[in-house]
């Protein structure tokens, strides 16, 4: 029982903060429920997970054995050079699922149900993004295991290597918000999917993911250097192979936070307006 006296005792300021506390609690619990719902997709059809891991594994093999010999990577083995790049690319592709799924919900009218419920609006997007991040983390770990079999070694020590999958999943989390914004704006899963393919595919190739930037034509290099994917990949490389991490870590963190808070807010706002 709540005693009425207790309520009356609250100052307006206390009222305000307790309202915020209640709100925060619902946002967290609603996001949790939505994350669980989105992960169920993989429990229902585990083959989805198989496909999203098989193609990156295939790419590891193709790149390593087809291009590996032709790409000079200094004193690094190509597999050591390749793995951070392909991890970033794969998790970014997996992040596009957030937008596609959101567009699917919007198209099928599922979102009408959510919007008529007293749940936190941000939880619909938050749940998507969190679920894909968990999947990204899983896929990244699996790929590292495959890389190890193909001869990749962590020359930068255990802890930085341990941080690698978390770092790429974190970056993908930030990008998920971009994909959520596209999904909430386009509202058509096919268009959302192909739009993001045309963003992620060229952007990852125009970075340091697969070949050293120095081997690219001079006019292209300035662009590839400011591409945030280059920073994320270089950070991954330093974590796994040793090297300076501070600058890339700061830039990658800023991009991740920026995408999460700035693009994320716009995405939630877009979604509210639907």
């Amino acid at each position, binding site marked *: 029982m709540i005693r009425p006296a207790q309520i009356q005792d609250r100052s307006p300021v206390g009222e305000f903060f307790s309202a915020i506390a209640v709100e925060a609690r619902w946002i967290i619990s609603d996001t949790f*429920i939505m994350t669980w719902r989105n992960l169920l997709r993989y429990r229902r059809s585990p083959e989805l997970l198989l496909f999203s891991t098989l193609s990156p594994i295939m790419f590891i093999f193709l790149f390593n054995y087809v291009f590996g010999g032709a790409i000079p990577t200094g004193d690094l083995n190509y597999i050591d050079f390749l793995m951070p790049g392909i991890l970033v690319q794969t998790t970014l592709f997996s992040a596009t699922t957030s937008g596609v799924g959101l567009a699917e919900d919007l198209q099928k*009218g*599922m979102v009408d*149900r959510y919007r*008529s419920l007293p749940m936190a609006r941000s939880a619909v997007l938050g749940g998507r993004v969190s679920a894909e991040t968990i999947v990204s983390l899983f896929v990244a770990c699996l790929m590292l295991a495959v890389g190890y079999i193909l001869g990749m070694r962590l020359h930068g020590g255990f802890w930085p290597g341990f941080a690698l999958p978390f770092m790429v999943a974190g970056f993908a989390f930030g990008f998920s918000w971009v994909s959520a914004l596209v999904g909430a704006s386009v509202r058509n899963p096919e268009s959302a999917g192909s739009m993001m393919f045309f963003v992620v595919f060229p952007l990852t190739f125009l970075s340091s993911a697969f070949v050293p930037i120095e081997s690219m034509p001079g006019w292209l290099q300035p662009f590839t250097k400011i591409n945030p994917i280059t920073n994320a990949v270089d950070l991954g490389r330093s974590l796994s192979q040793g090297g300076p991490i501070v600058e890339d870590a700061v830039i990658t963190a800023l991009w991740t936070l920026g995408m999460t808070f700035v693009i994320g807010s716009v995405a939630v706002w877009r979604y509210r307006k639907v």
Partner: protein
Amino acid sequence: MDFAIDVRNISKSYGDVVALGNVDLQVRSGSVMGLLGPNGAGKTTLVRILTTLLRPSSGSATVLGYDVVRHARHLRSVIGLAGQSAAVDDLLTGRENIQMAGRLYHMPRKQVQKRAQELLEQFDLVDAADRSVKGYSGGMRRRLDLAASLVANPPMIFLDEPTTGLDPRSRLDLWEVIRNLVSEGTTVLLTTQYLEEADQLADEITVIDIGKVIAQGTAADLKHQAGSEFIVITVREAEEAKRAAAVLEKFADNDECEINEEDRTASIMVQDGASIMVQVVRSLDAEGIVVANMAVRQPTLDDVFLALTGRTAEEAATESEPTEN
């Protein structure tokens, strides 16, 4: 008077298309309001405004005392919505669909589980409860959607064409469910294109056409405006329809008989078709007119429409379709 829904002068436009124009509507607590109208009349638009999915362009509305714009969040926790297309999650089982809705209403987990089982039983979904919704039939989806919208026992429920796409049996079952809800004191607003459905369920009916309320009253009131019933006589030869009409006119309430030469039919409006049927047949026989078929027809939305607007519901629906330019 205690109104569960109080709509004041609501309008909604999509660009140039006026979906609702100055609509007023009051629904008494504990009653069933039937919103009747052809395709494109604005039924869904009104339901979406009242369930906070859409903001009105102008005007105001309260549901259970909450303003649909200013108190949207509070309002959502006391209403249930079963939209025109079933919003069920293919990824989840039937049970999980209901439970998830319950959790998002912020009900305690234990209570959600108990309530989900109750609803699955009530909606005859127990056998399919733990199967993925992907394999559900259209009727099962509708029932599940309705079950999910009832999980929190909301005192006010919105049903947008709840029986569209259901077979006659499921339709009757659903009517029964709605009647039970009402007997427990729930206020219901339902939309439909069928006068019969509104007649069966609603205490009061509001007819809307191109975003305007054109009539309001009980089913009996509306039927009265449309002429209570129709006697429809089909003759063998098209020329005979005119002769039949001459006979039939005398029985008609408004001394008029409508002839449709193509269908070879002649029809009249009467109060009680069954009681005068025998007399009608005798008179036709006396004139030597051979009757191929005869029927007493209940008035439909079309008849109400024709009486109210001078055009059929079908014509109205075509008119309200947005024109390309």
